[in-house]
């Protein structure tokens, strides 16, 4: 097993108001089998032992499904590997002596909490505005009374796989949340269960997205390129169609 030395440049910032900056760290003994986050764990263990403050970053499942991690690595959300969340990125993608720059996702709508941790509650508020089917517990009909063709079910599923990490926002030159909002909206708007609220949902979610301070979409498709679960920008087209349909 080969061990590497990695040079890290990590964004450190005490809170949303404080001025932040890069700090440099040299980390020895990095195994190729470590995940990127495990490499940061090792850095933190070293920092704690030296009496310094560890680097704060968000994570939970470390399986690529909870969407907590959201690092921007060498300028790319979730790092170099296609369709891979940062927690599933392994150090075998790097070489001995590499310098790696680690930053938080930068967007006005995602204020920094500390270091690499940001506040993504804007996403929750977009869902709150209309990202649901209004069915109360107990009121549901027998499940097989709602047939859904396989093609429709699969298309809805592709959108439903969004893990809400915010990489799309980080990658967008306009800091737009269109891919997230489009995916969430499209999942419900193309299913039969979502039809009664389709127009209302489109207006509410799109307007909330704007209210949160995300930029608009100008078709760069950077979001699709970094999405760890491969959401297609057709979600944005669907969102725009549905929004126009609703307001016209």
């Amino acid at each position, binding site marked *: *097993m080969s061990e590497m030395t990695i040079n890290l440049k990590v964004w450190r910032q*005490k*809170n949303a108001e404080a001025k932040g900056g890069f700090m440099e760290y040299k980390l020895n003994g990095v*195994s190729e089998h*470590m*995940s990127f*986050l*495990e*490499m940061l*764990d090792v850095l*933190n*263990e070293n920092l*704690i*032992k030296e009496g310094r*403050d*560890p680097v*704060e970053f*968000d*994570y*939970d*499942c*470390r*399986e*690529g*499904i*909870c*969407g*907590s991690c959201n690092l921007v690595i060498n300028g790319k959300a979730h790092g170099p*590997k296609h369709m891979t969340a940062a927690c599933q990125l*392994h150090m075998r993608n790097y070489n001995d002596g590499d310098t790696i720059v680690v930053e938080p996702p930068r967007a006005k709508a995602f204020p920094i*909490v*500390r270091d690499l941790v940001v*506040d*993504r*509650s804007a996403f*929750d508020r977009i*869902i*709150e505005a*209309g990202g*649901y*089917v209004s*069915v*109360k*517990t*107990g*009121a*549901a*009909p027998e499940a*097989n009374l709602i047939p*859904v*063709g*396989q093609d429709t*079910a699969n298309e809805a*599923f592709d959108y*439903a*796989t969004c893990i*809400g990490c915010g990489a799309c926002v980080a990658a967008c030159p306009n800091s737009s949340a269109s891919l997230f909002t489009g995916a969430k909206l499209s999942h419900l708007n193309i*299913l039969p*269960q*979502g039809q009664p609220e389709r127009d209302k949902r489109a207006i509410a979610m799109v307007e909330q997205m704007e209210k949160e301070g995300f930029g608009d979409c100008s078709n760069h498709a950077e979001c699709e390129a970094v999405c760890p679960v491969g959401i297609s920008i057709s979600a944005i087209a669907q969102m725009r169609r549905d929004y126009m349909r609703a307001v016209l």
Partner: protein
Amino acid sequence: MKLDPKIPEGPLEDKWSRHLKDIKLVAPNNKRKHKVIVVGTGLAGASAASSLAELGYQVSTFCIQDSARRAHSIAAQGGINAAKNYPNDGDSVWRLFYDTIKGGDYRSREANVYRLAQNSNNIIDQAVAQGVPFAREYGGLLDNRSFGGAQVSRTFYARGQTGQQLLLGAYQSMMKEVHAGNIKNYPRHEMLDLVKVDGKARGIITRNLVDGSINKFEADAVVLCTGGYGNVFYLSTNAKNSNVTAAWRCHKRGAAFANPCYVQIHPTCIPVSGDYQSKLTLMSESLRNDGRVWVPRDPKDERKPNDIPEEERYYYLEEKYPSFGNLVPRDVASRNAKLVCDEGLGVGDTGLAVYLDFRDAIKREGEDAIRAKYGNLFDMYENITDENPYQVPMKIFPAVHYTMGGLWVDYNLMSNIPGLFVAGEANFSDHGANRLGASALMQGLSDGYFIIPYTVGNYIAGEDLSKVDTSHEAFEEAAKESSGQLDKLLSTDGDKTVVEFHRELGKIMWDKVGISRSKEGLEEAIEEIRALRKEFYENVRVPGESNYYNKYLEFAARVADFFELAELMALDALDRDESCGCHLRDEHQTEEGEALRNDEDFSYVSAWEYNGVNGKLNTTLHKEDLEFEFVELKQRSYK
């Protein structure tokens, strides 16, 4: 301590409906006068919160994640059981009940498990109406598959991410109620204590994880949905932030902790690769539908797996269990993996792995068909291990996955503290000594959507709940205790990190309170846990301060609770001088290594009462006898 399970009288199939008939109701205009706190927003928490809010209660939700949608239910891969019998293969509520109680090795309550099976179908209806995209057949109707030891196809699934899709449904339903003003949602808040007034649960103390402030919240009832405690082992399939703290603090306030030694070790996880390892990744056991588990017959065989001819491969599950083969329940599969590795037949660098081979399935069905079923799991595997499972067999090993034990609850899911309800993995109620695959999602949602909304109402309607607010001295005291504990951890100027302590604790637990246990090993474990806990308080180093976002401070407080829980788990495993389900005592097994139950002496729920820690954990065992009126207790056999 009096533990009355409050199981309704009458025939099994009528117990729940009779109970509902007797349950007290809160008038619609009165509901909005009552506050309910829901802690945790996984499947149980989000579904309970949205359902209570729809009824009109003022609900507050708390979670440690930055969004309610990220609770660890999200990581469940395989599926959710229901007794719909869509495939027409003979399933029924009775059969789902029977399989679940048998799977739990007859260490759960008949009445609770039957109700779970009854509720299962409603869950599927509810989820589909919310837009949860379950797998469908060409005709547009729902598809089912066989899963984890079931001989019928009753598992509904959503590719390899059933947990995420069900949680998004429950979360969206919850956000709908946030929008309606019926739920106030507090993300990045950790519950640090339960506040009791006049013996009843009347509120909680939380720490705002962003600014470090300690906050007080009052309510008429508290619903704890904070998941399991598998992370006591340090390495597990749980998310890194999953912990026992909320449940343990309730235990310290008097809630009995039931069956703490029942831990499920999942058979199909990616093996450990090094000391830096931070967690273990589960490969859904649906893989066992098509993958064949084997090791080389010759322990010295160093050939690559594909070079080993058929007759030199030991398909140990198929040979030992001809009728269930690779689909034996999780505990049986895990134990056998350990057995073959103990015999020196394990593979990989560490010798702690077995093969899960898809060669024959690919030959039979084609690579595309296998990709359609398991594509995302195969990708995940390749990403982590750098090996292509379409070409070489996967290497797998068991890992801690789920904890069947938890806070003791009665039939209403209320703990022995009035007003404290416990749902989902955090309670002990439905899985006995072993949980079957695709049953966790079912239980979390059954509790949250279809039990808690009724039983919390029944409690509120029947109690005299005089007004309490957070200026009450009980809140002051609890808040002071919580911040005092954090200050103490920060001021211990030691030189070992929290992670180092946690890793050491996990190793003791894995070696001696893991897949198999013995009297000798457990007694050693108890001594080792006590010694390490003492060292923790003298020598831990926690960085930073308490008035800002400080994850290692959060960890330190959680590990402190794991240290106490660990001792309780070992004590419980020591008391349970039998084998049952996932709890295998070396002293009690058949010649073939199967768990040997002792129904005469151990057919009880162990419920432990906390009496403080003074070098050792002081605790009192109470027993709730399990009575079986409707099923006959049998030795489990999967041969």
